[in-house]
Structure formats: C-alpha cells, structure tokens
C-alpha cells in the first residue's frame, strides 16, 4: 500500500523500476495494488454478477413457468429476445441513464435484461423438451398438472436450465466489464483506467483481464459441477 496522497492510479513515476519502465508484467504492482485496486474490483464484479443473474433467473423462471402453464408467448418471444440481445451493452447503459442516472441500478437493470433474455428461452425449451411418452406415463400414474411440472418436467429441464445459466453467468461477467464506461466499478475499471494513460499500463490490463477471464471460467466450471451433482444421468452434450 502506498502512503502517497493524490492519484494512485496510474501510479507512473512511482513504484519499482518494473512499474516505471512498464515492463510486460510486474508482480510487485499486483502485490501492492491487490488490496486497493484489484481485490475491490473483483468483489464488485462478483456482486454485480450475482445480483444480475439472481434477479434475472428469478424473473425468467417465473415467466417461463407462467408461459408453460398457460402455453403463452412461445414463438414471438424468440425473435423479440434475439433482437433485444442485439442492443449493445455500451448503448443500453447510456440509454438507461436518463431514467435511473449514472448508478449501480442502471448497470444492474441492463444486465438483468440480458440474463432474462438468455435464460427465458432456455428454461421454456427445457420444460418443453419432456417427451410425450414420459408425460403420458406421469399422467397415467395419476400425477396432477402441478405434480407433473415439479416432479417430472422440471428435473428433466435441469440440464437445459444450467446450460442457460452458464451462458448467462459468463456473458454477465463479460458485459460487466463494460460497466466501467459508466461507473468506476468492477474489473473493467482498472483496464479502462490503464487504457486512458498516455502509454497504457500493461500490468494493470493483464492482471484485471486475467481476473475477469478467470472468474468467468471458474463460474462456468462450478455450474458444470452443479449439473453433475443435480443430474448425474445427463450427458455432457448441452454445451
């Protein structure tokens, strides 16, 4: 931790010879700035992702159950969601600013919208994928509509739901870096700052970038593990 006041980042003119010379990678910079730059950014990024995917999943799940129970909105939603997903995050963040200001909420609304658009089609497709024979057998056993949903259709939809969650989580982590264009938060911010220097500071770009990619890959692996635990019978095909 440096005790110097004033702008700590980009930290040029201070630090070791490695940092001053902007060598390829300076471990000492990472060590010195883990606590004041990298670690907070990582924590913010995780918060950002958890909130966005959590809310997005809850909404998508509720909507999918509704649509499934009442057989609503099946086809048109596909195109609408694909179109919504084409709205570039950098533009969507800005377009929400007049409504919610330059705030954390703005970023979360945009991210929730993206996760919703990814998760809803996956969940409905998963629910619909139960084969007619299985449904027939379930009804034959005397299960009610609700029981069929919760005991047959949902468990069988788990692989598709987790496939959707993997895409949603990894995309949210990736898009979350763009939030730095709006707010000084998340793993995108150190990169944004480093790029703003007259000579971009390599170590900061590489370390924050590695954390973002690493976070995405770790979350993806955790979801694969979750699927193995929940549905050990499912093949590894829903990539």
């Amino acid at each position, binding site marked *: 931790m440096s005790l110097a006041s004033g702008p700590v980042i980009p930290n040029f003119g201070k630090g070791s010879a490695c940092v001053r010379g902007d060598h390829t990678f300076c471990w000492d910079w990472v060590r010195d700035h883990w606590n004041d730059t990298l670690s907070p950014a990582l924590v913010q990024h995780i918060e950002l992702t958890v909130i966005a995917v959590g809310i997005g999943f809850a909404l998508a799940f509720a909507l999918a159950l509704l649509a499934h129970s009442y057989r609503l909105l099946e086809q048109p939603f*596909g195109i609408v969601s*694909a*179109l919504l997903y*084409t*709205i*570039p*995050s*950098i*533009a*969507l963040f*800005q*377009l929400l*600013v*007049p*409504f919610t200001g330059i705030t954390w909420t703005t970023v979360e609304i945009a991210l929730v919208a993206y996760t919703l658009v990814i998760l809803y*089609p*996956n969940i409905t*497709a*998963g629910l619909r*994928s139960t084969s007619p024979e299985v449904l027939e057998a379930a009804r034959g056993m005397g299960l009610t509509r609700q029981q069929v949903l919760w005991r047959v259709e949902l468990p069988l939809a788990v692989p*598709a739901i987790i*496939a959707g969650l993997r*895409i949603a989580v*990894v*995309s949210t*982590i*990736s*898009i*979350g*870096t*763009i939030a*730095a*264009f709006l707010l000084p938060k998340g793993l*995108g911010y150190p*990169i*944004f700052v*480093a*790029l*703003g220097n007259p000579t*971009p500071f*390599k170590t900061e*770009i*590489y370390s*924050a*970038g590695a954390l*973002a*990619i690493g976070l*995405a*890959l770790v979350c*993806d692996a955790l979801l694969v593990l979750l699927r193995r635990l929940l549905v050990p019978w499912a*093949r590894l*095909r*829903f*990539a």
Partner: protein
Amino acid sequence: MIVAGAFTGAFHFIVHNPHFLASKTLDQIELSAAALGIALVVALPLGVVLGHFHRGATIAIGASILGRALPSLVLIGIFLTVLGIGFRNNTVALAVLATGPILTNSYESVDRVDRDAVDAAIGLGMTHVQILRRIELPLALPLLFTGLRVAAVTVVATAPVAAVAGGGGLGDIIVNQASYGLSGVLGASFCVMALSAAVFLALFGLQIAVTPRALRATKVPGNLSGKEPA
C-alpha cells in the same frame, strides 16, 4: 420531463449532425467488416473441415466457452499492448471475439448433419469435397448462418468499445461526454443500436433466403432445438 428532455436532445443531435454520425458509422462498419472478414477466413474453413471429419469437438466447444468468457474490453486492452493503438489492434481483438461463434457453429452444423444422408452420398461414390459441397453444407446452412449472425452482431455491437483504444466509430462519441454532452452520447447510442439491429435483421433475412426450401418449414435452429440422435 428530464427523461423526455434527454431523448429529444438526442434526436436533435442526430438531426443536426447527420454527416458526422454517418462518417462515424462508416468507420464502425469498416472496422467490423475487417474483423469479421478475418474471423471468417480463419474459423469457417477450420470449423467446416473439423465438422466433416467429426474431429476436434473439444476445440469447437472450448472455443465457444472461451469465446464467451473473453470480455471485449480485456481483448482490446491486451491487443493494444501488443499491436499498439489504433485500427490494427481493434480489428484483431474483434476478430478474436467473432472467431468463437463462427468456429463453434460451423463445426456443429456440419458435424450434426444426418449421418444417413452422408452414408448415402458415400454409397453413391461421392468424394469428400462433393459430400461437403452437395450434402453437408446445404444441410448445415441454417445453423452455420446462426453462428455468422451472432458473430456479426457481436462485432458490430462491440466495436464502440474500441473507442478506448483509438477505435474511431460511434464509440468515440459515447466515451466523450465532455465534448458531445449527454445528447450526443444518447444520439450515438441510438445509432449503435440501430446499426446492430439492422445487421441482425439483414443477416436474419439472408439466413432465411439461403436456407434450402425443404429446410425452411422447420424452425430456424437455436442452440437447443433438435433432439440428439442416439
């Protein structure tokens, strides 16, 4: 009131700066086209050939996971440190971004072609090239095009991020609120949105147009449609 004011400001900006916005849009299209071109040349043949020989599933699936996990800002930052500021590094960074969906979908689309159809073609004495050109590619087109569309939209939608690395294009306006004000930022955001939507719709239309008539009745494939052959 404030909200309405911000958006009318944005429309004023668009109406009063058509040439400026058009030239920025063209810059962005140029950057996107270059990136997409590189990605196509590299990933499409590779994916199709791997799919034809049913080899390298790990590469294709790995590319899709890695492709999604690589944030655009990180890629742009990394390539900037290697290739310097400007057009070259942004093109390469966006090309890497586009490689994932193109490689995965071109592999999957050819790999999943009905084995019976391919066996029949082999029985007729067709060569690898003939099978690929007459059987596999036509049947693979819808899914292949989904990959192209995803890649193209991703690249066009991400190109504004390149503004932090001297990218030119509409992103220059979005990251420079100090010069253009909120109305400029919003106006450029609308243009970015319109451009992405236009690319999406154009490629969607093209996808339907190139899909063989016999395949059109079936749904345009998403990632989950279609059961796995046992």
